[in-house]
């Protein structure tokens, strides 16, 4: 059991794990300087997957609210960050032009705020209705932006500019990813995390015991959405291009789902493992299976839910046995280092 007063104790309690994590991070940090642009791109996408997976897992895996609108917050973060560094192209006043970091912060904030506004409304819905409601809200956001060509560039999209070099954006994203993992870990192992799990297991029971479901759901939703916005903000500054079809598209939701389902829902290491596996799989599949890659990914989701319900996390911990969380956290760091 992890201590509630020292949320990071479990994470850094093990020296070997800490060492693996540091080595893994260092290995990731030199990637933009030591490899090709292709590999850098790939690993950057992997970091985006980690942030999306870890944050969605907070809402769905821990608080039990299966949101299907996570991609909207990612896309919003991307667009706000794009507007703030390159306002003229969206017909916005030059005065709001900001450095890339401020722009990413703006995207993060916008996504978090939108979640705080939408949260109380959406959480009037439960279960299936919540899932499909979030899917609809995300679709509305995408359609409105697609219709407002001035702000989104319509279907042709919108080019972004900033004053940062590609390796700098990469390193900032790496730092952000570490931050997201640590913050999520702290939340999950705090009182709030317990509240979320109580809601997940039985909302009515939790409510009757004095847990305020809305408070914890809203916390998970707002934090996770801000994190998705953060990933989107950096994605826009890294790819230097946003487009309502792809940036706000349901594809990001699919990727998030694959990452979490492959890795293991409701576990801290799951999304990290899932992001590593998915990145490898996606890269291999795109080269070998070509256009069938997406079909196979869809099939994998189904196969994993039916045959490997706990995801990779459970598969590994079942085999190795022993102290589960410690072992897999190390594995996760190793996976990310690859």
């Amino acid at each position, binding site marked *: 059991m992890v201590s509630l007063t020292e949320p990071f104790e479990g994470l850094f309690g093990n020296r070997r794990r800490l060492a693996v994590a540091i080595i893994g991070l260092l290995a990731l940090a030199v990637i933009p300087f030591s490899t090709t642009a292709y590999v850098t791109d790939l690993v950057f996408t992997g970091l985006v997957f980690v942030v999306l997976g870890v944050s969605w897992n907070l809402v*769905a895996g821990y608080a*039990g609210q*299966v949101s*299907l609108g996570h991609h909207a917050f990612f896309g919003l973060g991307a667009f706000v960050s794009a507007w703030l560094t390159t306002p003229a192209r969206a017909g916005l006043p030059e005065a709001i032009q900001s450095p890339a970091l401020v722009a990413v912060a703006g995207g993060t904030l916008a996504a978090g705020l939108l979640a705080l506004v939408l949260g109380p*409304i959406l959480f*009037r*819905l439960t*279960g*299936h*209705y919540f*899932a*499909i*409601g979030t*899917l*609809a*809200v995300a*679709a*509305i956001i995408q*359609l*409105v932006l*697609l*219709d407002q060509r001035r702000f989104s560039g319509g279907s042709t999209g919108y080019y972004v500019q900033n004053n940062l070099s590609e390796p700098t954006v990469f390193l900032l994203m790496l730092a952000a990813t570490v931050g997201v993992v640590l913050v999520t870990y702290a939340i999950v192992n705090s009182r709030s995390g317990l509240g979320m799990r109580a809601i997940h297991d039985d909302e009515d029971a939790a409510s009757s015991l004095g847990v305020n479901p809305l408070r914890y759901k809203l916390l998970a939703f707002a934090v996770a959405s801000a994190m998705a916005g953060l990933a989107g903000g950096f994605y826009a500054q890294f790819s230097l291009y946003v487009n309502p079809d792809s940036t706000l598209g*349901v594809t990001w939701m*699919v990727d998030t*789902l694959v990452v979490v*389902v492959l890795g293991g*829902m409701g576990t801290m290491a799951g999304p990290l493992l899932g992001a590593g596996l998915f990145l490898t799989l996606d890269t291999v599949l795109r080269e070998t299976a070509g*256009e*069938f890659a*997406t*079909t196979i*990914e*869809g*099939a*994998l*989701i*189904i196969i994993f*839910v*039916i045959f490997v*319900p706990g995801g990779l996390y459970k598969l590994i911990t079942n085999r190795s046995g022993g102290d589960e969380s410690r072992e897999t956290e190390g594995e996760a760091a190793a996976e990310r280092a690859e």
Partner: protein
Amino acid sequence: MVATDLLVQSLLNGLLLGGIYAVAALGLSLVFGIMDIVNLAHGHMLMVGAYVAIVLFTALGLTPIVGMVVAFAVLFVLGMALQRFVLEPVVGEGMEQPIIVLFGLALMLQSIGRIVVGSDAQATDIGIPGEAITIGAATLSFPRVVTFVLSIVLILGTWAFLKYTTTGLAIRATAQNSSAAQYMGIDTDNIYVLTLGIGTGLAGAAGALLSMLFPITPFVGWSYLLKAFAVVVLGGVGSVAGTLVGGLILGVSENVGVLYLGGGFRDIISFSIFVLVLLVRPHGLFGSSGGGE
């Protein structure tokens, strides 16, 4: 200001379109009401049904009406297999599992569709000559009238099946209380298999009908899923009559809304109606809280 003629025209076209929306939603509504499963792949199954009709028309020259029957049959079988081999093992594990599985299936259908037929929009042709029908200042195109009539036939057929056949009675009994139905000797597993078959079969038929009016691409799945769900919350889960009313409301709101707001707003209108109704009356405008009729 929009001219009155144009408004009447949109209104009537909306009503005719609403019939298809009702068929598209009926399968989703039955499966949700009877099995408590939201078929996230419903829109993508509709897309598959549309392509069945398109392929039969372009390759063999068969009328879309035959296409509709075949689309129903194909999706009926697919739905039964889906329930038996994919959903049955994960039901009861929690709410997330079926949702995620069906999301994965939707993804598969969309990408297979893109590989098989490409990304270009395609349509069928009604294949039956006919005059436009004039009512006052409004003219109703022949395909729209035919698809509406077929929609009504499908809806009445489903209603009569549930109401007057023994199997229909067993389905309703299972929806009301599955364990009691089991004690009465009903094989509820088979009932669920059949229900999903009917639900997805109706999605296929709706797709075939839509292919007569609108171009279809492999990417229309999500849009039609949300439209169908909008009809379900408008009409109340599991209610056949409610679904018809919900479909008509959605068809009219979309068509009249587009008149004032522009074509880019078609989907925004229906999704917004959906979210609004969901928030005001989570069990639908005409729905009770339970499943069944």
